[in-house]
C-alpha cells in the first residue's frame, strides 16, 4: 500500500462512507466548537501528567532508598505514593479521557458542542478538586482507601465538576443526528453513566453510611477495579474503536463481535473487584466469583482483539507512518497482556505467592499506562492537529515519545513481575526472614526506577511538543506528520 494514501485527514466517517463537501465543512465546524474545552482538558491533563511523573520517580527512588528526604512529613513515602497515584488517576487519566470523549462524542453525534464554556467550567472545577485532594493527601488527610484517598472536601468538588461535564456529554446524545449508534458511543456513554454511579456508591458506602469492617475493603476494591475497567477501560476501548478504523480508512470488521465484546466486558469486568483480595477475610464465594469474572474477561479481550486484528489485517504496515495508529495498536495489544496478567495473579495457586508482591503494581501500570495512556496519547496525536489547525512539528519527537514510553513501560513491567515473583516466593517461605523478601526485590526496584527515567523523558518531550502546538508553532501543511518519510527507498517499501 502506498502510504500517501493514508486517509488521515480525508473525510469519510466510519458510520457513513458517503463523502461530501458539506460534511467536510460540518466536521470542521464541530471540531471548532470543541476546540476550547478539549484543549483545556488536554493541557490540564498534561500538567498533571508531568507532576504525576515527578511524584512517581520520587516514589520509586524512595522505595529502594528509604532515607531519601524522609525527614519532612509532606515528603514521606506514604504520602508521595498516593499523591502520585491520584494525580495520575484523576488528574492525568480522567482529564485526558474526558477530553477525548468530548471530542469523539461531538464528532460521532455529528453535532456542534453547544455552550463549550460550561465544559470549561466543569474542567476548572475538576482541576480544583484534584488540587485540593492532592494537597489534602500531602497534608495527611488521606482517607485510607486505595484509589479513593482524596479527602471528602475534594471528593465533593470532583463530583460537582463531574456532574457538569457528564451531563454535557450525555446531552450531546439528545442532539445527535444519524441514528445508528457507533461502537465508540456505547463505550463512552457507558463510561459516563458508570462513573458517577460507582463513585457515589463508594463514597456512600465508605463515608456517608459506612459498611462494617472488611466490607469497606470489598467496596473499596469493587470501586477501584470498576474505575480501572469500566471508566478508564471503556474510555480507552471506545477510543481505539474509533481511531483504528479511522486512521486506516476501513470500517470495523464486525459489529456483531463488537456488541459481544461490549456486553461481556460490562458484565464480567464489573465483577472483578475481589480479585485483589484473594483468600482474604471474606466469604470465599465473593473471591471465587471475582476470579471467575476475571477469567471470563478473556471473552471480551478475545472478541475485541479479534475485531481490531481483523480490521487491521493487511494494514499493519501503516504503523510505520501514523503515530496515532502506532500508539493505539500498542495500547490495544497491551489490553490483552493486561487482562492475561490479571487472570494469572488472581488464580489462587499464583496468588499464594504474588498477592502481596510488586506484581500487583505491574498489573495496575499495565492497565493504566500501557493500555489506557498509550491509547490516549494516540488519540491526542490525532485530535490536537484538528483543533489547532497545525500539524505536529517534529516526527523525531513523536518517535522519542513512543519508544521511550514503550521501553519504559516494558522495562517497568518486566522488573516488577520478575522482582515480584522473587519477592513472593521468598515471602511464602517461612524459613527465610521476612526482610529477605524485601531485600531480594530491591535490585528490581532500582531497575524500575531506571524505567521511570525513560518515561519521564517521554512525557517531557511530549509536553514540549504539545506546547509548541498550543502556541501555534506546528507545521502548516496539508499532510499529517508521519513518523517516517512517506516516500521511502523502494527497497524499504513494505510489500502489500
Amino acid at each position, binding site marked *: 500500500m502506498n502510504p500517501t494514501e493514508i486517509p488521515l485527514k480525508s473525510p469519510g466517517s466510519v458510520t457513513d462512507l458517503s463523502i461530501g463537501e458539506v460534511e467536510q465543512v460540518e466536521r470542521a465546524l464541530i471540531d471548532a466548537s470543541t476546540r476550547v474545552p478539549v484543549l483545556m482538558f488536554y493541557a490540564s491533563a498534561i500538567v498533571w501528567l508531568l507532576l504525576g511523573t515527578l511524584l512517581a520517580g520520587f516514589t520509586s527512588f524512595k*522505595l529502594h532508598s*528509604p*532515607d531519601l528526604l*524522609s525527614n*519532612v*512529613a509532606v515528603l*514521606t*513515602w*506514604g504520602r508521595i*505514593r*498516593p499523591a502520585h497515584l491520584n494525580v495520575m488517576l484523576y488528574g492525568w487519566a480522567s482529564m485526558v479521557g474526558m477530553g477525548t470523549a468530548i471530542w469523539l462524542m461531538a464528532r460521532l453525534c455529528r453535532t456542534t458542542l453547544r455552550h463549550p464554556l460550561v465544559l470549561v467550567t466543569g474542567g476548572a472545577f475538576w482541576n480544583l478538586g484534584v488540587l485540593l485532594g492532592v494537597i489534602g493527601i500531602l497534608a*495527611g488527610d*488521606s*482517607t*485510607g482507601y486505595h484509589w479513593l484517598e482524596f479527602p471528602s472536601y475534594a471528593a465533593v468538588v470532583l463530583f460537582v465538576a463531574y456532574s457538569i461535564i457528564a451531563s454535557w456529554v450525555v446531552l450531546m446524545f439528545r442532539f445527535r443526528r444519524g441514528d*445508528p*449508534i457507533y461502537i465508540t458511543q456505547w463505550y463512552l*456513554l*457507558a463510561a459516563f*453513566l*458508570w462513573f458517577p*454511579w460507582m463513585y457515589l*456508591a463508594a463514597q456512600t*458506602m*465508605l463515608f456517608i453510611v459506612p*459498611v*462494617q*469492617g*472488611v*466490607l*469497606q*475493603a470489598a467496596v*473499596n476494591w*469493587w470501586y477501584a477495579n470498576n474505575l480501572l475497567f*469500566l471508566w478508564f477501560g471503556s474510555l480507552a476501548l471506545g477510543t481505539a474503536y474509533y481511531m483504528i478504523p479511522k486512521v486506516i480508512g476501513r470500517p470495523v470488521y464486525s459489529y456483531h463481535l463488537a456488541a459481544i465484546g461490549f*456486553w461481556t466486558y*460490562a458484565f464480567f469486568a*464489573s465483577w472483578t*473487584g475481589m480479585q485483589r*483480595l484473594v*483468600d*482474604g*477475610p*471474606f466469604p470465599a464465594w*465473593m473471591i471465587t*466469583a471475582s476470579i471467575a469474572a476475571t477469567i471470563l474477561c478473556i471473552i471480551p479481550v478475545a472478541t475485541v482483539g479479534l475485531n481490531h486484528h481483523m480490521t487491521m489485517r493487511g494494514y499493519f504496515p501503516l504503523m510505520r507512518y501514523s503515530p496515532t495508529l502506532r500508539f493505539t495498536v500498542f495500547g490495544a495489544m497491551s489490553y490483552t497482556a493486561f487482562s492475561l496478567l490479571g487472570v494469572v495473579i488472581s488464580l489462587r495457586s499464583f*496468588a499464594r505467592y504474588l*498477592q*502481596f508482591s*510488586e506484581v*500487583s503494581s505491574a498489573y495496575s501500570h499495565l492497565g493504566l499506562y500501557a493500555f489506557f495512556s498509550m491509547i490516549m496519547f494516540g488519540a491526542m496525536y490525532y485530535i490536537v492537529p484538528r483543533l489547532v489547525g497545525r500539524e505536529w512539528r517534529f516526527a523525531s519527537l513523536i518517535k522519542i515519545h513512543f519508544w521511550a514510553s514503550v521501553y519504559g513501560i516494558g522495562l517497568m513491567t518486566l522488573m516488577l513481575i520478575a522482582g515480584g515473583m522473587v519477592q513472593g516466593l521468598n515471602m*511464602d*517461605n*517461612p524459613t527465610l*526472614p*521476612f*526482610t529477605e*523478601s*524485601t531485600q531480594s*526485590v530491591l535490585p528490581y526496584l532500582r531497575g524500575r526506577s531506571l524505567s521511570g527515567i525513560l518515561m519521564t523523558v517521554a512525557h517531557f518531550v511530549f509536553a514540549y511538543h504539545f506546547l509548541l502546538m498550543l502556541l501555534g508553532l506546528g507545521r502548516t501543511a496539508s499532510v499529517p506528520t508521519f513518523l517516517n518519510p512517506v516516500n521511502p527507498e523502494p527497497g524499504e517499501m513494505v510489500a502489500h
Partner: protein
Amino acid sequence: MKGFTPLVLGILATLAFSWLGLAYIPDLQIGHLDPQSDEEGTDIYPMPKSGMAERGRRVYIANGCFYCHSEQLRPDYAASDIERTRDAAPSSPPKWGDRRSAPRDYIFDRPALLGKTRMGPDLANIGKAAPAEEEAAPAQPSPAPPAAPAASPPASNASPPPANAGAQQNAKPAAQPSPQTPAAVPPAANASASPANVAAQQGAKPGAQPPAPPASAASPPQTTAAPSLTASPSDSPAAYSAAWHHQHLYAPRSLNLDSDMPAYKFLYEKRRVGGEQSADAIKLRGEGAPGEGWEIVPTYDAKCLVAYLMSLNQSHPLNEVKSAAAPPAASPAAAKPAAK
C-alpha cells in the same frame, strides 16, 4: 445496536448487578456482625479501640503505612502466613499469628486496613508480639516513667511496664463514655475484668479466668519467650515493646540493618534535656544519637501511632476459625460455643 433506551438500561443493569453481588449481598451476609462472647456474656472479642489508638489509626493512614503493611493473614491452605515468624526477636520469635483473619476481627475498624502489598511484614498481630510482661524487661533501665503509674495503677492482670506507657495511656484519653476505672481497662461492654485490656493488649486472651496468671493461657511460647527476649543483647528495648516501636519508627535501621522502612523522624521531637531525662526518650546509641544534653521524645501523634500498633491483635480465638496452634484444653473460651 438497536436503540438508545436498551443501551442505557443495559449499561445501568450490568453495574447494578455487580453492585448487588459484590457490595449489597455481602453486606447482608457479613455486614452486621456482633462481637463474640461466651455464655456468660463475658470474654468479649473484638472490642473497640481506645481513643488514642483510633487517633493512631489516622496517623497510620496519613503516612501511608498501609501501603506496605497488610493487616490480614491468609488461611494455612492458601499461604504460609501463619507459619511465618517475626524477624526482630532472635530467640523464639513471635509468629505472625495463630489463625487466619476473619471478618469478625474487623467489625470496629474504620477503615479496615487490609493492605495490598507487603514491603513490610504483616501487622495484624503486632500488638500481640509485644513482650507479654513488659515490666519484666530489664532492658529498660530507667525507673518507671511518671506517666505510667498515673495512667494505670496496678491493673487487674499484668501490671504496667514502663515500655508499655504508650499503650497504657490509652485508657486515659479514651473517648468512650465510660467511667475512668483505675485499671487500664477501656470500659463499657466488658463484664469481666480480665479480657478487657484491649488497649494494653494483655487481656485479649481466652478464658474468663481470674486475672492473676492469665497471659499465659493462650500463648505459652509468648510468655516463655519474654524472659529470653530481655536477655537480648545490648541496650535495644525488648522487641515489639512500645519503646522498641518508637526507636524503630525513629531509626529503623538501628534495629534491623535490612529494614527498608523510611524513618519517621518528623513524628519525634529533639529537645534539650531539662533536669532529668524524659522516661519516654528514645535511647539511641552511636550514630544518630541526639548528643549530650539532648533527647528525642515522641510527639503525641507518635504515641498514638504506637498505641494503635500495640492494639493490633487477632490472637483471640474465633468460633468460626480454627487456630493453628490451638490453645491447650484449659482454655474455656475455645471449648465453649460462644453466645454469638
